[in-house]
């Protein structure tokens, strides 16, 4: 039987009076592209830090590829690569030196072939001998990804990797991460860009106040929670608002509805109310709506 890439069982963590994690249970299969979403302070980074051994949980257990992160920390950490949220770097070394050193920390010497491959994949080959201080923010972000990969970990955690990153780099990064996932790496992603999570992640967990409040495949979440939207441009916005719509901008009112069978009724009521329909726009369910709804219900 295949062990899960990540298993989190009843994990709790308290900082003073703040309950950062309040009994989190989670299982992520090998090869998944998994999204971990939640508002600021939901516990995402604490959970990732606990997986990485940077935070010691008060209760519960965490495993990476079947290895307990406390009792069997060496094997657990060898199976995990973490791209941290902050843009941190060691200013004393060049890119290649840093990657060689990081390999050495994981017990690997003579790792230049793999390092060259990572550098090429992340378009860093021409910067290999540059000191870290000389690199742009985007380049430093790529080096962080490279550092997380030097020991070829089966499980890779990306903690908001595209925060403050330009569009070109973001696209290049996702292309690379998708390839890693196709190659068999398990990817765990936290991001505030919900459209990225919707496009990339097969399953998603949503955290609020240290608890998992939703956990399902992306498709199921979209179907279970999300509503369609109807935006109408009308002559009499007040008449449309009286039917339960929300005025969004000049002359436009937005309605939420659960299925297309309700659409006809809604349009008929607008006509009856004399709203004066000029234009309509339909919106598909998206993860942002799901997220807002889940957070509102939790």
């Amino acid at each position, binding site marked *: 039987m295949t062990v899960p890439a990540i298993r989190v069982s009843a994990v709790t963590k308290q900082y003073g009076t703040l309950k950062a994690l309040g009994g989190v249970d989670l299982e992520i299969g090998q090869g998944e592209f998994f999204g971990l979403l939640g508002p600021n302070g939901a516990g995402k980074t604490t959970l990732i830090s606990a997986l990485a051994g940077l935070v010691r949980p008060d209760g519960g257990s965490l495993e990476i590829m079947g290895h307990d992160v406390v009792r069997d920390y060496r094997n657990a950490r060898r199976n995990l690569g973490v791209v941290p949220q902050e843009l941190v770097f060691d200013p004393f070394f060049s890119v290649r030196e840093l990657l060689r050193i990081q390999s050495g920390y994981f017990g690997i010497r003579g790792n230049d072939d793999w390092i060259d491959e990572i550098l090429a994949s992340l378009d860093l080959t021409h910067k290999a001998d540059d000191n870290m201080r000389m690199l742009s923010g985007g380049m430093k972000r790529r080096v962080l990804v490279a550092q997380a990969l030097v020991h*070829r970990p089966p499980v890779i955690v990306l903690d908001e990797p595209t925060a403050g990153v330009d569009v070109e780099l973001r696209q290049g990064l996702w292309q690379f991460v998708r390839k890693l996932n196709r190659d068999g790496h398990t990817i765990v992603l936290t991001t505030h860009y919900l459209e990225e999570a919707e496009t990339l992640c097969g399953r998603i967990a949503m955290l609020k106040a240290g608890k998992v409040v939703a956990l399902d495949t992306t498709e199921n979440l979209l179907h279970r929670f999300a509503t369609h939207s109807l935006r109408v441009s009308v002559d009499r916005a007040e008449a449309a608002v009286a039917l339960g719509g929300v005025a969004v901008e000049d002359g436009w009112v937005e309605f939420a509805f659960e299925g297309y069978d309700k659409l006809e009724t809604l349009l008929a009521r607008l006509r009856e109310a004399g709203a004066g329909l000029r234009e309509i726009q339909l919106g598909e369910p998206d993860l942002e709506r799901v997220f807002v709804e889940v957070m509102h219900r939790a």
Partner: protein
Amino acid sequence: MPETRRGATPPRIEPMAADAPLTGFRTLLYKEVLRFWKVAFQTVAAPVLNALLFLLIFSHVLDRHVTVYGDVAYTSFLVPGLVMMSVLQNAFANSSSSLIQSKITGNIIFVLLPPLSYREFYAAYVIAATLRGLFVGCGVLLVAMPFVDLDIASPLWVLAFAVMGGAILGSFGVIAGIWADKFDQLAAFQNFLILPLTMLSGVFYSIHSLPRFWQDVSHFNPFFFMIDGFRYGFFGQSDTSPWLSLAVVSGCFVLLAALTLALLGRGYKLRS
């Protein structure tokens, strides 16, 4: 088990195998040595110049007026003290500054994520600190040699106290680097603890020149035993028995090592 988005069984990825035991420790040690070596002008040359200035000024003022242990010229007496002071201060500076810089810039995470044990972490930082202390100490000795008539009576004592002193201050530096959250806290540690204890340890004088009360007080300063024992290796004479000094210094090292390892093992301020 949930399926992947594509529904296919993913190929199994194995992490790279470690080449040899202790490679992680050796790499951290190498990185810590490389860190100070890359800025050797600041970390080695500057303290050597500092010690040389002390030597020139004190020897100019006192050499004709003071002799120690009967017939040892003051400048000759001073050199081992300056060497040992450099060893101690630079060992402390190395581990403490490396750790606080890594903590403040956040790159300490690169050392905390890999499968390094806290013992490997401790050993790498303390050995690197000791090596920097020894590098600077050797530099001071080499630069001072042309100015003084100095033999080494017992190199083993010299080496033993230099290594033990470096390791003690390296451990102290690890504690200070972990404890301090800001550079000024570290500076306070250095200026209000390490510097006075070093300066008042007999670097510049024999404690026999002090009033009885201050001689007794000096015996509560572990730095006195480090410097006195180190000096014994040069002259075969010292203010107190080298065996007593070795016992005190060894005891201090064991206590500090145990304290540092306990803090690291608990993850104090590193793994919350």
